[in-house]
């Protein structure tokens, strides 16, 4: 019981990080219908940017941890946004209106470029960072097993919820969100009605990249270890989460992220750590057999 509760806490924390990345996938998919394979690598670059900013800030003598983290969050998200914008501009915009597989290959190419870029500029060795927020809150102690929620986990959950709250407000109640939803429904019609679709798509990438950078910072703080390859694994998991939740659906992405996080954690805890990826992917396949559009996805009407 206590053990399960502990796993629940761990699983939700991990799921939050996956959810943040998955939102970026699902948003881009909803608006231009492409799998942005480079998104996982934007997350990785975000983690590196966070590492650099955090180290630089401590070098400048900013010793207050909350202030340093807040500044890192803003700076890393800002620079990562620029990455998102540039990638869209270079690799995807020229292919707008081209056939479906062209942007996919372009995205895979971009993902390879970003990985090589991080490896060349920052080296292939893993980077380790000391825990920034030690300690935790012991919820209960049952039969000698202490259930603990670390401050770090609380920060992760809180930051994710705040960021997702801002994001939900942005999508549901601002003119930008309205244009985004309009472009998602019918890009041509939205264009005819005077929405600058190119700008809206650019901003979608910018927001997605910012969310991925936040996830990168949280990942860095939680695990304390990053290298140039984390983007692939996290990206595949987050994409799985997005598909599981129903690709194109924003609440679905978060739900899928939580589901993948929980499955992985519980499987590792009760069965085997080695097969946690197999468990997550198997659940995806099983869910898709019975619900071919994911948990919260809409079935699209098909016309000949």
């Amino acid at each position: 019981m206590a053990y399960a509760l502990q796993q629940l806490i761990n699983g939700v924390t991990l799921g939050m990080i996956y959810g943040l990345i998955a939102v970026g996938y699902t948003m881009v998919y909803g608006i231009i219908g492409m799998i942005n394979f480079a998104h996982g690598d934007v997350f990785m670059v975000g983690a590196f940017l966070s590492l650099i900013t955090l180290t630089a800030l401590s070098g400048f003598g900013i010793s207050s941890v909350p202030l340093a983290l807040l500044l890192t969050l803003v700076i890393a998200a800002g620079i990562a946004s620029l990455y998102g914008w540039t990638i869209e501009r270079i690799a995807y915009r020229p292919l707008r209106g081209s056939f479906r597989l062209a942007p996919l290959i372009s995205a895979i190419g971009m993902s390879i470029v970003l990985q090589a870029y991080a490896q060349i500029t920052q080296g292939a060795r893993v980077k380790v960072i000391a825990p920034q927020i030690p300690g935790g809150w012991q919820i209960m102690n049952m039969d000698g097993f202490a259930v603990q929620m670390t401050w770090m986990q609380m920060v992760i959950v809180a930051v994710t919820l705040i960021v997702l709250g801002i994001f939900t407000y942005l999508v549901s109640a601002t003119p930008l969100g309205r244009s985004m939803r309009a472009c998602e429904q019918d890009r041509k019609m939205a264009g005819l009605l005077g929405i600058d679709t190119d700008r809206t798509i650019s901003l979608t990438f910018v927001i997605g990249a910012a969310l991925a950078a936040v996830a990168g910072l949280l990942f860095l703080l939680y695990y304390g270890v990053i290298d140039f390859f984390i983007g692939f694994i996290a990206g595949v998991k987050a994409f799985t989460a997005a598909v599981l939740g129903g690709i194109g659906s924003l609440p679905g992405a978060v739900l899928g992220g939580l589901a993948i996080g929980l499955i992985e954690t519980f499987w590792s805890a009760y069965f085997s750590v080695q097969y946690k990826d197999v468990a997550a992917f198997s659940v995806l396949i099983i869910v898709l057999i019975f619900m071919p559009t994911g948990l919260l996805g809409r079935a699209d009407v098909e016309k000949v």
Partner: protein
Amino acid sequence: MSTPMAANVAAVARSSPAAAAFKDAALSALVALGLFGAMLGVLTEATPAGVVLVPRPLLLAYSVAAVFAGRLAWLLFRSRTPTTKAYAGNRTVAEALQRSGRFVAPALLAFAVALPFMAGRYGIDLGILVLTYIMLGWGLNIVVGLAGLLDLGYVAFYAVGAYSYALLAQTFGLGFWTCLPLAGILAALWGVLLGFPVLRLRGDYLAIVTLAFGEIIRVVLLNTVSITGGPNGISGIPRPTLFGLKFSADGGPGTFSGFFGLEFSPTHRVAFLYYVILGLALLTNWVTLRLRRVALGRAWEALREDEVACRSLGINVTVTKLTAFAMGAGFGGLAGAFFATRAAFISPESFTFFESAIVLAIVVLGGLGSQLGVALAALVMIGGLELFRDLQDYRLLIFGSAMVLTMILRPRGLVSGRTPSVALGKRQEISAELVAEGRG
């Protein structure tokens, strides 16, 4: 680039091209400064005491200057040459390539057959590598190019073939030629196994499930240590024989050199392996070309164009999809068995998503459905990767950039024309823009 934007740029460029280009380049340099500022400007050095930052201002300055100069040069160059002319040139190249297609294919084949007599050991090895990818590309082409089913986990079948051969050979002592068809059949069975659950899925849902399938296979291979050796892989996989003749140095009557009375040379085995993969690749090509003419092949292409229309015409979509998966997987398995016997050592390291991505890129860069295009794309990509081997990490940077650039310049691939498999009267080439590429 969108038309109003292009018109805008053109208008500004007319008023004062140099000033506008200068402004644009300065803006690009500013963006580059933002992008590279942290990643290039600072190196994170992992020391025992934690991460230490090492500033690299010179590198950053050079990179930003390079972006500025590059952008300026490109803009000035473009303002001198009218855009229409560039496009026309591009089209002539494409048309010339298509017209010469009839001669390029036999020429390539002749070159492929003659290669072992002309090239040295390194050249033949490179030829084997390229041919392996050509075969994988042709195999995946059945699934993606003909049936229009997006498969991101093709490497799984390559792995199944390789491990099937390795395990059959080591457990039961079977030879390469017995195991080769078995490996193909086993991989085809796995293809059907994957095909079943994904029958109802479309497009990108299919993509993620196949990707997941590829990862599952890799993780299973990595962790069933007692059978597959886990991360250590399987070594000492037997080499193929020519009708029972071994390629070994002892020179007895049971060996190739002894039987034919030749001086032993390790090149014999390499050349033999080369012809084996050439034969296997040509088999894949031949089967594909033949299948395109019968009902099944035409059903694949119909499925790619429109699944609903297909169903309403009475085509059995289940059988069509499953056979496409099985055929593609079977050829992947044959290539895998060949890979195992050539390398004599396999480990899960060789079967990562990166391989799937390369093969898919070969198929798309080649122009989906075009056999010649796939061969050319494999030659260019794998040859290019080998060519830049000395550049180490930069190799992948160049490789990825080349993928992006090729898609931007030729989104429909190198050979983007389509010739119908069956036609009344004259078989006429049509543009690739007129066919879909699988929403299935």
